[in-house]
């Protein structure tokens, strides 16, 4: 497995954004003194006149992006998820969401895989916050391929979009010919009949690997990759739940308000089913390496495998 290609989705953000910049002259990029971390420095190098460094002033950046959008620009505002979704929640809600402006929010360093910086920088509430804003698209790509597809879809979508990217390199899992991306559509990565594992972002890889371990013990898990958390592909999840009768959700986010909550919302209406939510269990993160933290919070393959087995009573 050591030869699997690994790329951090923030790298995908900087790189694809630059390619998008070539195709869309009205795309402008804003950052708040984190260009080397969010990778918007790549865009800045090629299009210095279309890159606006706002300094360490994220709230101002969000409302400036809104003003730019009113004039026909397509602004991508970039920061860590903590400062984009967290610090700027109200600016995003009132300056961008309420007027339904065409602003794209590129939030990097989401979740616990921020690692050593610790809880202050590990945003595990952003999906909950952004999902609550009417008209906001919320996407959490699982790898480089999906991150790039997400960005292409976002620039074509008219209206606000929140995209979540990670700091740490993650395996490329979607580089197969049939892969196709559409906002609001989930993907059945592996078919199965005993349990449905719905995962998002970096946890799709955990779910895939957990499903392999379960298969070795005769448990046939269906794995669904949900990149778009809002609007959620509820029908796809409900159809799977009707088949398997049990659903596990996996996310690098709090179990409050994220993918797990969104899945429960959908299933409660479409196909009431017992659900086990794997995620950060209403606690703050801590320092550690990305891998250590994924394991500590039970978000790695081993954690998903164990929790799923327990949930199935096996």
């Amino acid at each position, binding site marked *: 497995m050591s030869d699997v290609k690994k790329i951090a989705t923030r790298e995908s953000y900087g790189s694809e954004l630059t390619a998008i910049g070539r195709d869309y002259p009205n795309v402008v990029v804003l950052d708040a003194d984190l260009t080397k971390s969010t990778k918007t420095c790549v865009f800045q190098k090629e299009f210095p006149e279309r890159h606006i460094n706002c*300094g360490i*002033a994220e709230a101002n950046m969000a*409302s*400036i992006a809104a*003003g730019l959008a*009113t*004039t026909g620009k397509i602004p991508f505002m970039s920061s860590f998820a903590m400062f984009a979704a967290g610090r700027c929640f109200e*600016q995003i809600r009132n300056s961008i969401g*309420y007027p339904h402006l065409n602003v794209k929010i590129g939030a990097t360093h989401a979740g616990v895989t921020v690692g050593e910086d610790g809880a202050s920088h590990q945003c595990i509430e952003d999906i909950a916050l952004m999902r609550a804003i009417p008209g906001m698209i919320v996407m959490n790509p699982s790898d480089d391929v999906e991150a790039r597809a997400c960005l292409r879809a976002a620039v074509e979508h008219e209206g606000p979009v929140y995209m979540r990217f990670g700091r740490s390199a993650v395996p490329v899992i979607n580089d197969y010919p049939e892969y196709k991306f559409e906002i609001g559509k989930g993907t059945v990565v592996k078919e199965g009949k005993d349990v449905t594992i719905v995962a998002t972002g970096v946890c799709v890889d955990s779910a895939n690997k957990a499903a392999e371990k379960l298969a070795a013990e005769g448990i046939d898990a269906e794995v669904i990759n949900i990149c778009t958390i809002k609007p959620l592909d509820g029908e796809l999840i409900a159809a799977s739940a009707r088949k398997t009768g049990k659903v596990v959700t996996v996310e690098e986010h709090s179990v409050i308000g994220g993918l797990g909550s969104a899945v429960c919302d959908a299933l409660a209406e479409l196909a009431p089913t017992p659900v086990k939510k794997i995620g950060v269990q209403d606690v703050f993160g801590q320092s550690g390496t990305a891998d250590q933290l994924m394991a500590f919070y039970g978000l790695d393959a081993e954690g998903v495998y164990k929790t799923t087995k327990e949930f199935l009573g096996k």
Partner: protein
Amino acid sequence: MNKLELQKMAVEVRKNLLIGLHAAKAGHPGGSLSAADIFTYLYFEEMNVDPKNPKWEDRDRFVLSKGHTAPGLYATLALKGFFPVEEMTTLRKLGSRLQGHPCVQYTPGIDMSSGSLGQGISAAVGMALSAKMDGKEYRTYTLLGDGEIQEGQVWEAAMMAGHRKLDNLCVIVDNNNLQIDGAIDTVCSPYPIDKKFEAFNFHVINIDGNDFDQIDAAFKEAKATKGMPTAIICKTIKGKGVSFMENQAGWHGMAPNDEQFAQAMEELEKAGEALCQM
């Protein structure tokens, strides 16, 4: 418009904003009245806008950062012809396009939604930046309350405007000295306001914001100023034009009852008649 015509129009703006507030039984008269002369000057003298084509891409932009004084802006836009003046009585009512605070999607002539203080000036900076990027000639104006500048985001925006030398941006501060909880210098003083904007690399002009001669001179000076944004600090009277509302913090967010409304309208009618005899 000449000064007399502007003065007469400002009386009409004041009457119509009060008609709206009275019908709504809620809203913000104090800051709408203090800024009525500024609204009037902007839309009837200064800004290049077309009521028949509100989304014209080369128009001058205005962001009402102190969004709670929407009634003053709505009355001005209606008198300018963006929508019928009769609509003022729908203010704040269910289904109305005259929401309690400005909404860019609903109301013709509104360039940006606002209401949450401190955000409008940043949006105006975004509009001014966009004009610079595209080499467009339009100017962007934004009106802030003097209480509003207690918001930290205002100074983030000011820093950016000064840093980027946005001489196509004009920031106007309605310095009526009152906020909800009282005088701004007793709640949490933002003074000296002019020195603060100067420190953020603005050209600063101090004027009486209820005097059209001074307003006219200031906006001409702002337009002629190159290489830096301009801030016009307008000393105004909260509740200006209605005797019992003037300089009363209590009229920040309260609508007049029937009796008070009748008295206010009578005072404004008289003011209008006096101007007609000049």
